[in-house]
């Protein structure tokens, strides 16, 4: 392994895992941004919404399929070999198409046009006809066993806000899969509300940029889809798959990273995991392990544990389990390496570095593989023993039964029914062989702290064949030309536009953009002069009311717009906006629709409010008077005087100022008063 030495040098130089210069490790990152579209589903007219209902429940089994090249690909085999029975929930928002009990309808025109607009925004080249493909997916998430997907555009680019040029390899329009609701690994439960929701998948070419720039690219790519106004919101509507490799390592795909801010951590931890595996493989290649030593040889060592105090083993054996062991030649110390422990593996006369916390390496990988192949939980390796109640004597006895060289070899031990144990240990052995080669190519599931664990082997690329139920679709120039008049902006473009049109600063503009309020702002703000009022309404008054539990969604934009006008023309005091809206909602709730035009209702409320209103200064004067009059109470109760004082103050100010505003003013005045006496 020619790169291992370089990797070691880089790891050596770093004081902590956070210091390591990933680009010097030869980091390459490929990004896949997935974003769901709103509206109807891609191949039926069901709505693209999630459902709280289980709906109709049915069960299916998935079966081995030959992929296009005639070989069953590794990923498919891995899933099928688990012999899954899948439970599906079909809520009332779904139909026979999601259940795979009816052929698909033609693709949603809306989704198709959105995909073309986004592709054009990236300056992509495009196909002349769109052909949907079936991508085999046998994890059960899709009742058909495949996902329909089409490549729409290719070879585009994007400059991020920070100015990094991101090359787009392809843009695909695809259907989302069912939503995992629960169930065990071999008996998963999926809800079909999400199945068939259209989503765009945008794949970048390998990026050789710092992890922070990858995060920015993910955000900016997702933003362009969002700015079409056609993207779906809510949990799970955006996700990223991240392909990561370093020099001497191998491409690993971390699936379903939802939180953008985790992207840099995910990349860093994966790159370092690969670096450590590269290093381990170098160490192992120096151990002179012979090929024949790697044939799995199972040893039943149950008799060692007949009177064990280990609860895990004891319980397993009570249930008819056996303790089965295999020897791992040359592995002493290798399995136990965690990046947060100063492990002592001698390598080129150097000690392996300490202090890289929380990046898991071979031990956990082996345990994951065993678990995912067989479902066993009790997997132990000699580097972590004695522990779990397993004694030093028991460990030594196992080592001697295996006739292993304790200075060189390790063992892995499983407590499970015999057949299950063999399955688990065979999977362990496959992973062990890969350890000699370096980094296996895997699909991995992200863990909350940014690490990841094994999901399945990397699927081959040839697992697609044409979806013949959907005829290819022509994409004529005329259609592209028409759509090109309505392309979404980039984030930079939109920010500039918002800043100029509404004469607001970048930070405010970013807030408006991030909260998806550009459209609302356009609706309620009739000219640039009133934008500061509108921004205040959207970014402070309304969020405050939401916190107070008011149902803001019941206020139509025309009311907001009229309110902004009233404030802008001086008819309504700025600080009364919240009060006006509260009264509007009360009125709506109280009398229902009495046919009065909305603008008249608002006008009356504004008149009422502004007539009896007093200024903040006047209010503070009154509050201060009350506080002084109850000096003793304040002295005695301190800040808890707030509650008893609210009553008398409300009596004086009722109808002249919003109650919550009074409460805030009282708190402030109380604080002032108390500091003044101290």
């Amino acid at each position, binding site marked *: 392994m020619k790169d291992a030495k370089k990797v070691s040098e880089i790891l050596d130089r770093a004081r902590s895992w956070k210091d390591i210069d990933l680009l010097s490790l030869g980091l390459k990152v490929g990004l896949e941004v997935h974003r769901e579209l709103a509206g109807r589903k891609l191949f039926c007219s069901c709505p693209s919404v999630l459902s709280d209902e289980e709906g109709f429940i049915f069960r*299916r089994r998935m079966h081995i399929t030959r992929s296009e090249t005639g070989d069953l690909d590794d990923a498919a085999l891995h899933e099928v070999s688990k012999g899954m029975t899948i439970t599906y929930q079909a809520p009332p928002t779904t139909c026979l198409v999601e259940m795979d*009990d009816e052929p698909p309808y033609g693709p949603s025109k809306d989704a198709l046009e959105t995909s073309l607009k986004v592709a054009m925004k990236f300056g992509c*080249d495009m196909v002349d006809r769109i052909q949907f*493909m079936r991508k085999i997916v046998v994890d059960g998430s899709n009742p058909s066993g495949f996902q329909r997907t089409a*490549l729409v555009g*290719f*070879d585009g680019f994007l400059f991020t806000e920070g100015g990094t040029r991101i090359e787009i390899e392809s843009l695909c329009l695809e259907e989302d899969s069912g939503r995992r609701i629960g169930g065990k690994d071999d008996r998963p439960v999926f809800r079909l509300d999400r199945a068939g929701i259209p989503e765009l998948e945008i794949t970048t070419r390998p990026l050789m940029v710092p992890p922070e720039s990858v995060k920015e690219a993910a955000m900016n790519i997702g933003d362009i889809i969002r700015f079409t106004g056609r993207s779906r919101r809510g949990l799970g509507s955006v996700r990223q798959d991240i392909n990561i490799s370093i020099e001497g390592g191998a491409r690993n795909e971390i699936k379903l990273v939802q939180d953008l801010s985790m992207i840099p951590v995910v990349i860093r931890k994966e790159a370092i995991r690969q670096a450590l595996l590269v290093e381990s493989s170098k160490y192992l290649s120096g151990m002179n392990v012979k090929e024949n030593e790697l044939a799995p040889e199972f040893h039943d060592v149950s008799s060692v544990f007949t009177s064990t105090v280990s609860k895990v083993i004891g319980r397993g054996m009570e249930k008819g389990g056996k303790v089965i062991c295999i020897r791992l030649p040359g592995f002493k110390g290798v399995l136990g390496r965690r990046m947060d422990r100063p492990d002592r593996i001698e390598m080129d006369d150097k000690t392996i570095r300490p202090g890289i916390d929380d990046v898991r390496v071979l031990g956990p990988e082996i345990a994951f593989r065993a678990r995912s192949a067989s479902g066993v939980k009790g997997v132990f390796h000699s580097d972590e023993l004695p522990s779990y109640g397993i004694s030093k004597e028991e460990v030594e006895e196992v080592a001697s039964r295996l006739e292993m060289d304790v200075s060189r070899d390790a063992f892995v031990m499983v407590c499970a029914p015999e057949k299950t144990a063999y399955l688990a240990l065979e999977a362990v052995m496959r992973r062990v062989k890969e350890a000699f080669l370096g980094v296996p190519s895997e699909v991995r599931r992200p863990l909350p702290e940014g690490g990841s664990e094994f999901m399945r082997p990397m699927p081959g690329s040839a697992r697609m*064949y044409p979806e013949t139920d959907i005829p290819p679709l022509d994409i004529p120039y005329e259609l*592209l030309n028409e759509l090109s008049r309505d392309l979404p902006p980039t984030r930079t473009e939109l920010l500039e536009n918002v800043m100029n049109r509404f004469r607001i600063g970048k930070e405010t503009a970013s807030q408006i953009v991030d909260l998806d309020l550009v459209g609302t702002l356009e609706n309620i703000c009739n000219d640039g002069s009133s934008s500061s009022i509108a921004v205040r309404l959207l970014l402070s008054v309304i969020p405050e009311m939401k916190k107070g539990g008011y149902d803001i969604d019941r206020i139509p934009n025309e009311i907001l717009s009229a309110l902004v006008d009233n404030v802008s023309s001086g008819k309504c005091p700025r600080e009364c906006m919240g009060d006006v809206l509260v009264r509007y909602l009360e009125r709506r709730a109280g009398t229902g629709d009495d046919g009065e035009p909305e603008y008249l209702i608002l006008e009356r409320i504004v008149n009422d409010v502004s007539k009896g209103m007093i200024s903040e200064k006047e209010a503070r004067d009154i509050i201060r008077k009350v506080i002084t009059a109850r000096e003793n109470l304040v002295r005695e109760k301190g800040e808890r005087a707030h509650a008893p004082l609210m009553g008398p103050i409300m009596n004086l100010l009722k109808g002249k100022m919003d109650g919550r505003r009074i409460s805030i003013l009282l708190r402030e005045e109380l604080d002032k008063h108390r500091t003044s006496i101290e």
Partner: protein
Amino acid sequence: MGLPGARKISDLNPGTRLNIKVKPRDLPYDRSGVVQFRNVILMDTSSSVKGEKVITLKLENGYNVMLDEERIRIDGVLDDENIFDSEIRDGGPARTPSSVDSDEELPPITIISTGGTIASRVDYTTGAVHPVKDGSEILSIYPSMANLCRLDVRTVMNELSEDMSPREWVVIARAVKKAFEDGARGVVVTHGTDTMHFTSSALSFLLRDLPGPVVLVGSQRSSDRPSSDAFINLEHAVITASRAVLDRVVIISHEGPSDGTSIIISGTRARKMHTSRRDAIRSIDSPPIGRVVGKRIELDIPPVRLDPARKISIVGRFDRTVDMIFIHPGISQEGLDSMLKGKKGVVIVGSGLGHVGKRLIKVLKKHIDRGMICVISSACIHGRVDLNVYSSGRNLIGAGVIPSGTMTPETALVKLMWAMGTAGSEGKDRIISLFKEDIAGEWGSSTPFSEGL
């Protein structure tokens, strides 16, 4: 584009691997430069848009793209093997011989392959589904069958459901007879689902003294799909053929949308009731005669005794000069008259209890009087034909029609074809008495209530 004499991509054989350069299509924005694709596979050159050839290429990432030919420049043909020349295209070679050595203790079962979705595989080039060329390929698709029984797969034809005709019914019947004579414990017939209920009726009338079950089975989703119902259907058919104590023709169908439980339907009571659902084939006006739950069989009919020594026979043949006419409000006297011209028999699918408009009864009577046999069935599918309730029904009886009870229109048609073919020159009375005889439960005794229709 290209140099004179440069090869056009459509001159190459599909399956060729090559590197290409693609120049931009017409776009409403500027795009310069060409895009290189390495190691693509030429899939298809046969489609075109507005006279422009459109080339289908498979990219390295598995996606197919369809590009105008004039955008593509060949950037080197890779000298690898043409992937379509290898056996890959059909999903690999059939590795399993037509009969499998398995446990002598297991019951001997013959699978008669006739075609249809269940005996088809995908052409991964076009995605189109084609029938298997050889029944033995079924074993390579469904290898787990070998654990349930000793299998013998025989291909008698390769027809889609819609291409089946009475001639094929007889061919299948002879193949079933031969299979039992060769020692089969039970016979599975793989068949397309569209007309399977016609075939099951036909076999029910033809095959007598069955020594074991004849199980028809198909699938609604092709076997290339991981979700195909073919696997469980075939498994349940084989279980039924090898273990069920039955001496009749039955169909296996999903009980509901779930995999796991199948219903066993009597051959004369089955009908395909949905275009695409897995549980499309239902038992009409009679509960299923049993179920297969996992690997267990539950029968819901009086027990029979199987006699392996019983000598199976084929009784009768089919007359094809029989037709079926669906009565509707727009049908005219002249129209009906011309449809009936030359027919020796007809099944009229009437409305409601089996009614036909006054104006049409005259026409029917004219043809009945010249010797045509007219059977009345109902467009309701469910429920019994009864011509005594209303005067129009009584008028039909007066005209000489034969009501078909609770038979489905399809069963009535097959029965009439069989009765006419079997009676031969024996005349009308013989035909009617054969038609009225209950041969395989087609007349039923009563229609029990069932939830839903």
